């Protein structure tokens, strides 16, 4: 090829690329909510001389451009695999492990763990109601052998140690790590594409809780198994390792009730349901909300079973655990301190609970700024 031809070719490639991007921007449909990211995308910035001269317009415009890039998810996914090819596994916060495991990086060491535990124990002392706490370790702590070689160290064992030593008299600490570790190869304790534990994992947790609280746990074969295919969870949507296979979600429903209960959700307004499982949510993108409809400030469940009254103070790790606990309590109230802003003491003096149970994922227990107990 002659030099002139080469120059033409290279120039043409560049010009075509630039114009193709511009045309795609103009003609691809714009959405304002990103399903995978669960957030609203940047809006087209309003133009004014003020915003232009302060630089706000241009930086907002840049944000708008990258939020609305054509084939955005394809590009993000490409970038994830490019980082992987460079040997930088985990650059997007998620390790791509062996066997299709997507594993969150360990949480930050410099965190609020001590403060949060101190607040919980102090609160427990003040209530006079028997209180227990359980924390679900990180996925990477349990399935460490599936991590890539450059993975950072998971320090959940240190957290367990601290919990054991700080929870001596006022709070009963229910350590799940041995039980989960013992069964991690027989059962899949976590979802591969989501940060939550599975029903199998929660069932192990349920058994440990029953042991600690002197309850008789329901037998595993007293539950019916329902499955939901094609579950892509948060670990997937954070990293967009799009070649990963989806999880199959296993849902365990009591044979006796099939999950039926009187459920009242207070979330600004009051919603009622006759079942703890929200099957309609399996059709949506966030399938984990099949359990008790996901995050809400306040949920009351009248189970119809025999037993006492339980208060669960929790994050979303409790959602698949509570249907098991429903077998042993007549009433369960769940509050989520991230959204429930009334003093808990008010609730405790208005109603009488037999037991308080804190259920948190380890990362949230270590990082939450909302564990404020009055």
């Amino acid at each position, binding site marked *: 090829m002659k030099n002139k031809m080469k120059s*033409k070719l*290279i120039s043409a490639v560049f010009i075509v690329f630039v114009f193709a991007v511009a045309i795609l921007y103009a003609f691809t449909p714009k959405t304002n909510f990103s399903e995978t990211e669960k957030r609203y995308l940047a809006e087209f910035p309003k133009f004014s001389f003020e915003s232009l001269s302060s*630089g706000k317009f241009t930086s907002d415009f840049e944000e708008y451009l990258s939020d609305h890039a054509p084939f955005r998810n394809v*590009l993000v996914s*490409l*970038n994830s695999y490019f*980082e992987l090819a460079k040997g930088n596994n985990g650059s997007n916060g998620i390790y791509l492990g062996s066997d299709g495991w997507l594993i969150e990086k360990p949480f930050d060491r410099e965190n609020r763990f001590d403060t949060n535990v101190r607040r919980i124990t102090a609160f427990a002392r003040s209530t006079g109601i028997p209180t227990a706490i359980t924390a679900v370790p990180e996925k990477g702590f349990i399935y460490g052998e599936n991590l890539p070689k450059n993975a*950072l160290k998971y320090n959940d064992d240190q957290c367990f140690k601290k919990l054991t030593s700080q929870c001596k008299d006022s709070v009963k600490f229910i350590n799940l790590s041995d039980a989960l570790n013992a069964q991690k190869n027989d059962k899949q304790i976590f979802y591969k594409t989501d940060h939550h534990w599975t029903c199998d994992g929660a069932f192990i947790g349920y058994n440990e809780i029953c042991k600690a609280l002197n309850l008789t746990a329901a037998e595993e074969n007293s539950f019916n198994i329902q499955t939901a295919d094609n579950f892509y969870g948060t670990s997937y949507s954070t990293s967009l390792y799009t070649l990963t296979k989806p999880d199959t979600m296993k849902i365990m429903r009591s044979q006796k009730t099939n999950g039926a209960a009187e459920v009242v959700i207070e979330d600004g307004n009051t919603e009622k349901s006759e079942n703890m499982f929200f099957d309609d949510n399996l059709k949506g993108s966030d399938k984990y909300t099949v359990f008790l409809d996901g995050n809400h400030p306040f949920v009351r469940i009248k189970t119809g079973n025999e037993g006492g009254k339980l208060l669960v103070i929790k994050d979303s790790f409790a959602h698949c655990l509570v249907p098991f606990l429903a077998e042993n309590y007549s009433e369960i109230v769940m509050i989520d301190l991230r959204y429930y802003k009334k003093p808990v003491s008010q609730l405790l003096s208005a109603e009488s609970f037999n037991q308080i149970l804190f259920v948190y994922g380890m990362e949230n227990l270590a990082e939450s700024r909302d564990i404020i107990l009055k």
Partner: protein
Amino acid sequence: MVLLMLISIVINYIAGLMIAKTESKNHKKLILILSVIIDLGILGFFKYAGFITENLNVALPFMNIPKISVPLPIGISFYTFQIMSYTIDVYREDTKAQKSIVAFGTYVSLFPQLIAGPIVRYRDVDIQLENRRENIEQFSHGVRLFVLGLAKKVLLANPMGALWDSLRETQNGGVLGAWIGVIAFSFQIYFDFSGYSDMARGLGNMLGFEFLENFNYPYISKSITEFWRRWHISLGTWFREYLYIPLGGNRRGKARTLINLLIVWMLTGLWHGASWNFVLWGLYFGILLIIEKLFLLKVLNKLPSFVSHIYSLFFIVFGWVIFYFADDVGGLSALLGFIPRLFSGGFISADALAVIKGSILLLVAACVASTPIIRKIYMKLRERKGFVVAEVIAIVLILVLSTASVVGDSYNPFLYFKF
């Protein structure tokens, strides 16, 4: 801000014409001095007023000078120096005064290099301003340069920045962790800056301009003197031409030469930003250059080249440590806090090692890209049959990966939602 640039253009355009028209040497000089005072006054006010008042308040607390904070107009450091090169050259009769205000305005506001250089001297482009012909060869050369610059910025500098951030934030990362961190920063600043320069030169090419090279593989230098001939060449040239030599350069005896060098380097430092660490950084290099000038250069020339290479890299990298800690990231106290980490506190921590392991390929790629190896291979292969196909693939790959990387960085799942 656009207005400010227009004012500068008009003032210097008129000054240039007046200098050219006036017969009297003294009048010429007067006009030049006036225009330079105005140019530096504007730069001084917009870039340094906050810094000066802040320091005056520290020195003279009873004065209670109100704090001035003005937004820094984009590219002001670059275009002010460009404008001054014009008036000074007209005064020296190194170039003719530009009669067309459009052409002169084009020169000052030339967008490709407005933000991050190079500082294009007027006399290097005066002919191109009016007689340039865009042609396809030059355009395609521009494409190559632009894409190369893009790759440097997005695929090397940005991830290096992330590596430096995570190693800096890894407390007790050990000596090796800290050094790899500052080496990552050294790569970041080089590929960032030279990437922008390449993109600017590439865009210039596409528009029919030819700008001089701004970086020439600075990290292969065997002395600090050589480093400054290879790093930000247009800035070094500017200071030599319009400050060092007018101050008398090295023609007025040893003592005066040393003072001149210190002045030039202090101001070179200050040009980079209104913060004490930049002054310190400038003086640091001034002193190193003086030492090399006095005797060290002769010694270095006799040493095996890897020794002088290591010597240079050590002081360059250490220089970037000073450069990093500007006032807005903690200033000199943060610098003093960081330096011990380079020399004590264990070899390397497990965390730092894990971070570095994930970046080994990146570090190797950056080392290779800092040397002329790729260019040499390119020059050898470019005439081969079918090489253009490889070139097109490389260009498309860089464009796509860079886009993916920029979009990927903005991908920001609402993590709070997940619990």
